[in-house]
């Protein structure tokens, strides 16, 4: 299988003009367009975070004004959530890998795929325009009635940008669902799918079913502000709490949009670098679906102090505990996979192990917040901030970097420099913990979120956090340099550098435009490492 007779032309050599990239329908090129765009957004959001951490190094508000501070954390939240985290793994790694993993020539709707990137960019430009003409000060949550009646910032523009970007999410999800259902190679049954695909399938269901609710909600906010229709305006009989319900009906499942793909990446990495089949494949697969399903019924835990009925609080608290069960199944099964595995510590594996640790802390502190009484105590404090950063940054971003390194040889045809990559992975782990662990303590001691002036006794934790953030900033910038370097000077990658089983590794690195010379016929489950030291490809 590995002795190819001739080298087909790689997708990177199918045209070198800017036009050939901007009009491409090749899922691999669209993935790269997304990758470049979200990298820019990541560093923009990161720049806002840097300014926030500089301000918080001292108790006095001496670096930026109150108003600027509000605009900074809003910018950070909006850009990181909608323009980095949501598209991060699905639109880049997913776009590139899904058709390869299912043995298809492309996604089901290549033109929609390109359209989704243009919508994403249009949404991004509108949002950035809102930032540059004066900014938004509502926080990424756009809570009413502040956003509809009192804020003097550019709310309509910002929600329009997010509204447009939402449709790019929907199109990506639609494409994945249809492709995974209808485009699988012969022999690739559901239980032979790599777990990355199960995760992305679950993610896509949320993208398709939750995002439209955000769209209608933001549209109502814009109309409320613009045309005074009063849907969320108490003086006109509207209910601001209804906004919270609708917003979190999207935004809680959105957390799973962000973390489920990361879980899928980690399943791939743990199996590959332990040289073992993922323990309890069926449970890991179905736990992704369970998280997506139950995740639709927990949104009320963001509203324990909003005045919703005690009964609603009780139900949402209970459901929030339930959703922890499938998440825990995943963590236990990854650990069980490691058990007696033949573990190697390549950079992707370091990221995967980092993910498991950080996600566990984020998940367990999530249980604190699912407790009605304890949540009331820490609502709107740094405890919440620390918790969701452990999930979204410690979890998702770590997994994104892990997946990026793992598939980098396939995407670019070059190997990344291993020791630099391991160094960055370790630095990210330490920098991250140093940044965010102190924030749990700050939260428990009563430091509220979204304030930049605070009592001096909190300063030690804030300084620790800011110091950690500076390490984290360097650690996140490192891959930008060494991965770019590897594009030109990296070692040429073999077709299957990790000697693993997925279909994406049974085609040249980088793949030709149509992915496979001949449609592969799948004969076995993924992760077949039963013959010691050997990997049996799914189509071998």
């Amino acid at each position, binding site marked *: 299988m590995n002795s190819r007779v001739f080298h087909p032309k790689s997708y990177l050599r199918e045209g070198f003009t800017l036009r050939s990239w901007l009009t491409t329908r090749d899922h691999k090129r669209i993935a790269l367009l997304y990758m470049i765009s979200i990298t820019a957004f990541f560093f923009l959001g990161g720049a806002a975070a840097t300014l926030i951490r500089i301000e918080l190094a001292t108790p006095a508000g001496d670096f930026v004004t109150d108003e600027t501070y509000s605009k900074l954390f809003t910018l950070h939240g909006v850009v990181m959530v909608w323009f980095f985290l949501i598209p991060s793994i699905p639109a880049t790694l997913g776009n590139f890998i899904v058709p390869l993993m299912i043995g*298809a*020539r*492309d*996604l*089901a*709707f*290549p033109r929609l795929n390109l359209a989704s990137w243009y919508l994403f960019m249009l949404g991004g430009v509108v949002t950035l325009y809102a930032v540059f003409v004066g900014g938004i000060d509502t926080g990424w949550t756009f809570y009413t009635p502040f956003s509809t009646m009192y804020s003097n910032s550019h709310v309509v523009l910002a929600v329009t940008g997010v509204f447009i970007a939402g449709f790019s999410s*929907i199109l990506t999800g*639609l494409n994945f*669902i*249809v492709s995974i*259902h*209808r*485009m699988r190679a012969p022999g690739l049954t559901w239980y032979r799918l790599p777990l990355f695909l199960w995760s992305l399938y679950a993610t896509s269901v949320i993208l*398709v*079913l*939750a*995002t*439209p*609710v955000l*769209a*209608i*909600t933001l*549209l*109502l906010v814009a*109309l409320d502000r613009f*045309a*005074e*229709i*009063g*849907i969320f305006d108490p003086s*006109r*009989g*509207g*209910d601001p709490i*209804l906004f919270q319900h*609708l917003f979190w*009906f999207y935004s809680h499942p959105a957390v799973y949009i962000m973390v489920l793909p990361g879980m899928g990446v980690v399943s791939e990495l743990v199996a590959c670098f332990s040289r073992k089949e993922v323990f309890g494949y069926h449970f890991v697969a179905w736990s992704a679906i369970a998280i997506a399903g139950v995740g639709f019924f927990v949104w009320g835990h963001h509203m324990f102090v909003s005045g919703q009925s005690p009964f609603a609080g009780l139900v949402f608290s209970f459901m929030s505990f339930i959703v922890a069960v499938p998440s825990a199944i995943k963590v236990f099964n990854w650990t069980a996979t490691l058990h007696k595995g033949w573990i190697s510590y390549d950079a992707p594996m370091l990221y995967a192990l980092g993910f498991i640790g950080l996600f566990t802390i984020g998940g367990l502190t999530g249980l604190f917040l699912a407790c009605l009484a304890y949540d009331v105590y820490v609502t709107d404090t740094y405890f919440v901030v620390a918790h969701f950063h452990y999930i979204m940054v410690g979890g998702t971003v770590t997994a994104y970097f892990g997946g990026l390194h793992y598939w980098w040889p396939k995407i670019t045809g070059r190997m990344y420099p291993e020791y630099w990559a391991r160094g960055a992975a370790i630095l990210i782990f330490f920098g991250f913990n140093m940044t965010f662990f102190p924030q749990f303590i700050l939260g428990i001691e009563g430091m509220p979120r979204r304030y930049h002036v605070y009592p001096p006794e909190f300063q030690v934790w804030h300084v620790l956090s800011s110091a950690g953030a500076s390490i984290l900033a360097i650690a996140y910038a490192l891959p930008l340099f060494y991965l770019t370097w590897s594009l030109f000077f990296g070692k040429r990658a073999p077709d299957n550098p990790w000697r693993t089983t997925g279909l994406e590794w049974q085609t040249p690195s980088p793949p030709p435009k*149509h992915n496979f010379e001949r*449609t592969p016929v799948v004969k076995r489950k993924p992760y077949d490492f039963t013959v010691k030291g050997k990997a049996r490809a799914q189509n071998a």
Partner: protein
Amino acid sequence: MPDTRLAEQFVDLRQQHDVAELGIWVFLATEVLFFGGLILAYCVYRSIQPAGFAEAAHHTKIVIGAANTAILMTSSFLVAWAVTITKLGEARFAGLLLWAAALLGLVFIGLKGLEYTLEYREHLLPGLGFDYPGQHAIAAHLFFSFYLVATGLHAVHVAIGIAVLAVIGRRARQAAYSGACHAPMTVAGLYWHFVDLVWVFLFALIYLPGRSG
């Protein structure tokens, strides 16, 4: 000989057809949630202020609303007819049926515009000189806000549908579809039926409260 109708990512026409049909169903699921959020808001406010909503609903133009319902139902029937006979190989006549359905869509939009004009003159449209006397002013404002947003969004969907039907109708006249290859028409048809179905819900929510006795 390679089939020009087959896009390069597919193995055969059957797969291409299946993909198109599943795609539109997934898209319609998105649409259900999009309108669902709006209808939820309506239900919440109506359950809080039932009397106000019932009174406000009396000011809607039920004759126009009922006529529009009949018009959309008829157009949906024409589309269903067109898809059925295309499967039997009569694509040219199907094109005419789709054009007729699109024409009915235009009539719907025209009547909707007339309705908006009448309501504007009666100061019933929020944001456009709304003025409603009596104790139910607040409920009426919410009701007509929902009315304006829901029917406005629906009208945008109808307008898109008209354009789609017109184009697909033209392609059908050029005999682009046959019993084996009619995915674009099936997809356009499903979209149109969905738009029609949304209207059926809106009709019940907007025109019927308080009119049953």
